[in-house]
């Protein structure tokens, strides 16, 4: 050991495009992983000085404070409209939105679909954890039938609340999106695959190809009332059946 001390090589470090601020996510939550992967991607593509973070309402509301990039806080659901406004007046900027399922697929579904349909040259990161995390665990548009939440205490009843929305599949029907994929982070292999997908989605924008969406099926240990390990098992045994992983559109 001591013989090697003089030749230590740094193989892992905090991404340069992150500030020193601590994430405010709960322990075991996949949000932290995604945020870090995005920062790493920004480093790799060397776009820190032209990236703009469009932060949502929800657990990542202060996301702009974590990046050494320009950032803006968007009204609940409106991130894709805000991103459109920025990109249209300054196409040189690299804009990404980071939105939860309530933000993107409930209150903001119109803005989300129409930005995709216009083929806005932006990158949308969609965190699908099947629940409203920040407000305390209410039913989301992506909550599974039978899955419990504070506003469906006996589990989602399809007769009253319908079925989980598969947003990636919905916009895969459109002609404009360039890259649409659904990813997950519940094991090492999937983290690597998801990282590649996020990088590809940013690359599409850098190369001017158009709209891309990375839906990431994630967990919420706090509001699912499970340990992080249990959430990963639940994702694999139940959630991926409803939200199958993989690329849906790849017109790159």
């Amino acid at each position, binding site marked *: 050991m001591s013989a090697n001390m003089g030749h230590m090589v740094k193989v892992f470090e905090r991404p340069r495009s992150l*500030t020193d601020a601590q994430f405010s996510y709960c322990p075991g939550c996949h949000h932290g992983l995604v945020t870090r992967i995005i920062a790493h991607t920004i480093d790799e593509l060397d776009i*820190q*000085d*032209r*990236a*703009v973070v*469009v*932060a949502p309402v929800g657990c990542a*509301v*202060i996301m*702009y*404070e974590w*990046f*050494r*990039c*320009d*950032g*803006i*806080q*968007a*009204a609940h659901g*409106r991130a894709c*409209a*805000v*991103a*459109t*406004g*920025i*990109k*249209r*007046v*300054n196409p*040189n*900027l690299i804009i990404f939105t980071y939105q939860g399922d309530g933000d993107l697929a409930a209150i903001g579904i*119109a*803005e989300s*679909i*129409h930005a995709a349909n*216009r083929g806005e040259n932006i990158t949308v990161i969609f965190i699908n954890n099947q629940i409203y995390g920040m407000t305390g665990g209410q039913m989301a548009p992506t909550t599974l039938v039978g899955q419990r939440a504070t506003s469906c205490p006996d589990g989602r009843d399809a007769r009253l609340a319908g079925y989980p929305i598969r947003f990636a599949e919905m916009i895969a029907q459109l002609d404009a999106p360039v890259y649409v994929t659904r990813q997950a982070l519940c094991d090492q292999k999937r983290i690597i695959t998801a990282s590649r997908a996020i990088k590809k989605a940013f690359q599409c924008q850098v190369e001017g190809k158009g709209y891309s969406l990375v839906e990431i099926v994630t967990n919420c240990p706090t509001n699912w009332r499970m340990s992080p390990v249990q959430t990963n098992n639940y994702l694999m045994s139940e959630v991926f059946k409803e939200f199958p992983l993989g690329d849906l559109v790849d017109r790159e």
Partner: protein
Amino acid sequence: MTGNDAMAETAICAGCRAYFGYPITPQNELLEYMAAHMPAVGGAFVQAESEIAAINMCYGASAAGVRTMTSSSGPGISLKMEGISYLAGADLPCVIINVARGGPGLGNIAPAQADYFQATKGGGHGDYHMIVLGPATIAEAVELVILAFDLADKYRLPVMVLSDGMLGQMMEPVTIPEPLDLASLPAKPWALTGARGRGPNYITSYFIDPNDLSQMSSKRESRYRKIEEEEVRYRETETSDASIVIVAYGTMARIARTAIRMARSQGIKLGLMQPITLWPFPYARLHTLSSQVTTILTVEMSAGQMVEDVRLAAADRAETPFYGELGGLVPTPKDILGEVRRHVS
């Protein structure tokens, strides 16, 4: 030129390079004019999926440092209120034109002035103000659209031009100013342009710590006080010897001017006080006027909204009757004169 076309062309000349809108009568020509002419100056035009999306596109484009505008009418302006609150909370400039129509609800497409409360007293949530400008003619609309962009940038807030369907649809000869040299506009070092050679810029209205939000709001309030001191604008016609003064803004002021000519020819000492800035409202001037006249008659195409501000200003120093028409009906000069006669002893 129609008022809608004139306001659109003036905005482009004033350096507007981003317009986002949604079709609604009676402002459709404004959106169509922008669609036809914005590309030629290299500006952004998007027909948005809703007024909510349009105002949030404005929020993004304004944050990126560009002079930005949207327009709509009653029901669409209601949808924009969320975004207007966010613009105010994030200290972003933006110009919003309301070509007002009859309400509430779907109402109708006739001209009305029933959006005064919404424009001047809030409309969206939280402590904020827009500067609200009320043009009475297309020439005034041209002048006030330019002023709107300048004030929005100067004070970093949304500014509304509160016109109506009459002004938007009618045609008048008008002189459009020379296009502004964009390089002459003051820099916006706060804008989102990429964190190159500087630290990150953040645009947000979110301050979780009450002390921080209180501090930000107090700063904004002191800007509002400065605006109240420095930006009040109004126009007076024949008020110096008047015993009765009409207070009216926008289209109603234009019609009242004719009523004043008719009254004067009949020996009635009638004057007009036309608030140009509806916020900040010319309380002080009206307070002074109220001690020089017996009666201040407020005339609106509403059930009586601005009249509340007039009565605040007059503070019982004069009689303050109200005359209004509802539902998109427009009072004629004769109607106004008839109302004036009821108050002349």
